[in-house]
């Protein structure tokens, strides 16, 4: 399939707009580049492919971490209808033009939203149309039966395949981490390329024809009054029983797969739960810290208030004291020179040095005595001021320290509040009950054990009934020997039995062979695209063990060393759920060794793994198949990637960027302007057409326009 164009009307953030895609069988200028800043609609564009192809299986609410509304209609248009009169309505539509096996099709999906009196939310009516454009370019009468369209689309581009060819950076990481989507992708591609549906349909048709021949034989035997007629009737009944058992078996297997998937999902959710518990613990600790900091804050404020109450007036007198000190210091009276001292000298008539005082000196002393203050208060004042200043300085120091401490605690409280707010947000965004999940997992594990027991028992029963059927068949043939008419029917039944057996075997072998081929191809892709290959890391898709289809990476030398040492292979094969009936070949041992030595990846490494996986499934689908092979077919898929280069650097960035054109005849790539700048040099020669998406300021929609690779982007 090749996408030709996609057109929008009122769909999500695109009120209107159309993008034409380029492609090239020579892998030249086959990249359609869409440059769009984050938040302008890259992911919306990516998922519009999902919506137009398989809307019923698409849940917008599942787009975690994206700004989403749970409907396809543009938010503003939705609101306008909602706020308007009853019976107001409008619609959104996505039209995809594509080419499949040299025929052009137009797929159009439209959803009308109508306000009704009774409903709070709008009534939604979905319509889908698929039409073919004939050789003359005329659009043929469209088919509007959703089921028929779905069946046709499943044949052209199966839903499972979309997991491997349409994804964004966020999903890239999931592909290589949880692997669920990768498994869907690999299964989808393998099943599509090896015509699994055709094999299953053929088995069904041939079984029906065989039933008819069995009835004919029973009637013939009855008419000939042969004992074999009873046996034939039993054989028919046994066959019906085998069919019913097989149906039940398949249902159980499917149920077991779903249960296992859910268990895996729960395990992943529980990892988040563990993380949430850690967040909760940190939240509680930070809350306590905040409480204690607030207490310290209050205490310090009390201390500050007390200090101010005690020494506040003193602090206010500092200026006054300074002035008094200045004035007092300006009157220079030596210490000890006071009225009492002068009077003592005058009384003694002799100086302290022993000199006799004459009347002139005595007069001078009397004059001095009259001018001196009654006592020398200056020094006293200065002493008091010194003491007060000392007190003031101490109080100021204490207040200053106190204030600094208050400031530090305040900042600490602020930081704690910020962290608490972040943690609170993280906690409220996780909406699940861990205990409930653990209970669900336990219940499911029990259910899985029961299912596995029933599956094994059914498998044995089917096997034994099949053997019995062969025995009946042999007996019937013996009993109907030498009867021309019966021999003829026997031949046809024998042929049909062999054909059904052949189809079952072909399906099995195709699957095994496809996984082997994919493993060879993914190694080549990894070698081409991942920097880590040069450091001895390699990649593998699990083929035999219970983790079938899982992608793992490992260090080659570790696996070689592991393989060369003595191992308890029986224990290991049990650990990895290897079927008891399977011979423990070197290939299986090799796989177990890889699983034992599988290494975790960083975000960048995960992306390198996913990029290699995508190239591998595309290369595999495009591989030239054996001539005259009835079931393996060559498939052409486009690849649509949103922001694959984030978190990549070095060769993990340059290698995929410079080889992106070789992924498929058609590569639709969405990048932010910044990301484009990083890879521009490696991509520019392979870009056939480019567009830009711009979100209008304060509007709930974006515009799409053609762009050049020049400065404007």
């Amino acid at each position: 399939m090749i996408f030709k164009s996609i057109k929008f009307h009122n769909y999500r953030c695109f009120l209107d707009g159309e993008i034409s895609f380029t492609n090239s069988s020579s892998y030249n200028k086959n990249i359609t580049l869409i440059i769009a800043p984050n938040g302008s609609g890259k992911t919306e564009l990516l998922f519009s492919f999902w919506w137009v192809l398989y809307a019923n299986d698409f849940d917008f609410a599942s787009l975690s971490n994206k700004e989403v509304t749970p409907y396809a209609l543009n938010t503003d248009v939705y609101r306008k209808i909602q706020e308007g009169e009853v019976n107001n309505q409008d619609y959104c539509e996505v039209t995809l033009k594509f080419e499949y096996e040299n025929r052009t099709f137009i797929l159009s999906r439209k959803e009308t939203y109508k306000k009704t009196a009774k409903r709070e939310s709008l009534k939604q009516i979905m319509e889908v149309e698929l039409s073919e454009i004939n050789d003359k370019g005329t659009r043929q009468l469209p088919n509007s039966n959703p089921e028929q369209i779905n069946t046709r689309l499943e044949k052209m581009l199966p839903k499972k395949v979309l997991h491997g060819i349409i994804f964004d950076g966020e999903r890239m990481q999931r592909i290589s981490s949880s692997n669920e989507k990768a498994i869907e992708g690999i299964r989808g591609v393998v099943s599509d390329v090896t015509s699994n549906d055709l094999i299953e349909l053929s088995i069904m048709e041939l079984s029906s024809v065989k039933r008819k021949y069995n009835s004919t034989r029973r009637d013939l035997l009855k008419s000939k009054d042969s004992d074999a007629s009873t046996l034939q009737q039993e054989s028919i009944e046994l066959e019906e029983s085998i069919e019913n058992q097989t149906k039940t078996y398949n249902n159980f297997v499917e149920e077991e797969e779903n249960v296992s998937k859910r268990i895996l999902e729960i395990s992943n959710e529980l990892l988040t739960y563990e993380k949430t518990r850690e967040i909760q613990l940190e939240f509680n600790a930070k809350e306590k810290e905040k409480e204690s900091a607030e207490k310290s804050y209050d205490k310090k404020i009390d201390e500050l208030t007390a200090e101010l109450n005690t020494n506040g007036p003193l602090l206010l007198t500092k200026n006054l004291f300074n002035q008094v000190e200045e004035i007092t210091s300006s009157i220079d009276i030596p210490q000890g020179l006071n009225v009492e001292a002068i009077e003592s000298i005058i009384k003694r008539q002799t100086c302290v040095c022993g000199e006799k005082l004459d009347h002139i000196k005595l007069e001078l002393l009397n004059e001095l005595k009259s001018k001196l203050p009654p006592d020398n208060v200056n020094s006293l004042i200065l002493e008091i001021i010194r003491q007060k200043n000392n007190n003031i300085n101490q109080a100021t120091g204490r207040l200053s320290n106190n204030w600094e401490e208050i400031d530090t605690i305040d900042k600490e409280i602020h930081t704690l509040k910020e962290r608490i707010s972040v943690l609170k947000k993280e906690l409220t965004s996780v909406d699940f009950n861990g205990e409930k999940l653990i209970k669900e997992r336990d219940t499911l594990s029990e259910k899985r054990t029961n299912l596995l027991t029933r599956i094994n028992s059914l498998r044995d029963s089917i096997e034994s009934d099949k053997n019995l059927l062969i025995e009946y068949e042999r007996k019937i043939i013996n009993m109907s020997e030498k009867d021309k008419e019966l021999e003829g029917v026997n031949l046809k039944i024998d042929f049909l039995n062999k054909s059904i057996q052949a189809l079952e075997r072909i399906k099995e072998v195709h699957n095994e062979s496809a996984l082997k081929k994919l493993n060879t191809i993914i190694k080549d892709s990894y070698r081409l695209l991942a920097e880590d290959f040069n450091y001895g890391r390699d990649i593998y898709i699990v083929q035999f063990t219970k983790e079938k289809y899982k992608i793992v990476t490992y260090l080659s030398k570790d696996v070689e060393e592991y393989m060369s040492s003595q191992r308890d292979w029986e224990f290991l094969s049990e650990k990895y759920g290897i079927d008891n009936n399977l011979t423990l070949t070197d290939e299986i041992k090799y796989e177990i060794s890889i699983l034992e030595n599988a290494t975790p990846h960083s975000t960048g490494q995960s992306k390198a793994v996913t990029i290699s996986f995508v190239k591998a499934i595309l290369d595999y689908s495009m591989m030239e198949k054996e001539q005259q092979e009835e079931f393996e077919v060559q498939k052409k898929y486009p690849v649509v990637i949103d922001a694959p280069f984030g978190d990549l650097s070095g060769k993990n960035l340059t290698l995929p960027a410079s080889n992106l054109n070789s992924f498929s005849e058609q590569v639709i790539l969405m990048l932010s302007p910044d990301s484009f700048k990083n890879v521009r040099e490696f991509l520019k020669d392979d870009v056939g057409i480019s567009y830009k998406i711009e979100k209008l300021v304060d509007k709930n929609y974006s515009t799409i326009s053609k762009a050049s690779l020049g400065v404007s982007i």
Partner: protein
Amino acid sequence: MTIQKSNRNITETVLDDLKFSHSEKKLFKSIIRTIRSSKSTSQSDLQNELIIMIEEEFKDDIQKY
């Protein structure tokens, strides 16, 4: 360790293993082609078509008895 590539046609190998004769192989492949191209045919039409093909193929063999 390199994983062996199988270059053999899977269908052909399986049919050989199950000892399909040349004419049976031809019939098997025609049946598959008919089923593959039966997109618009109804199920009963398809089964009748398959029965006609089988009858036609075994016509000569039956004559022998």
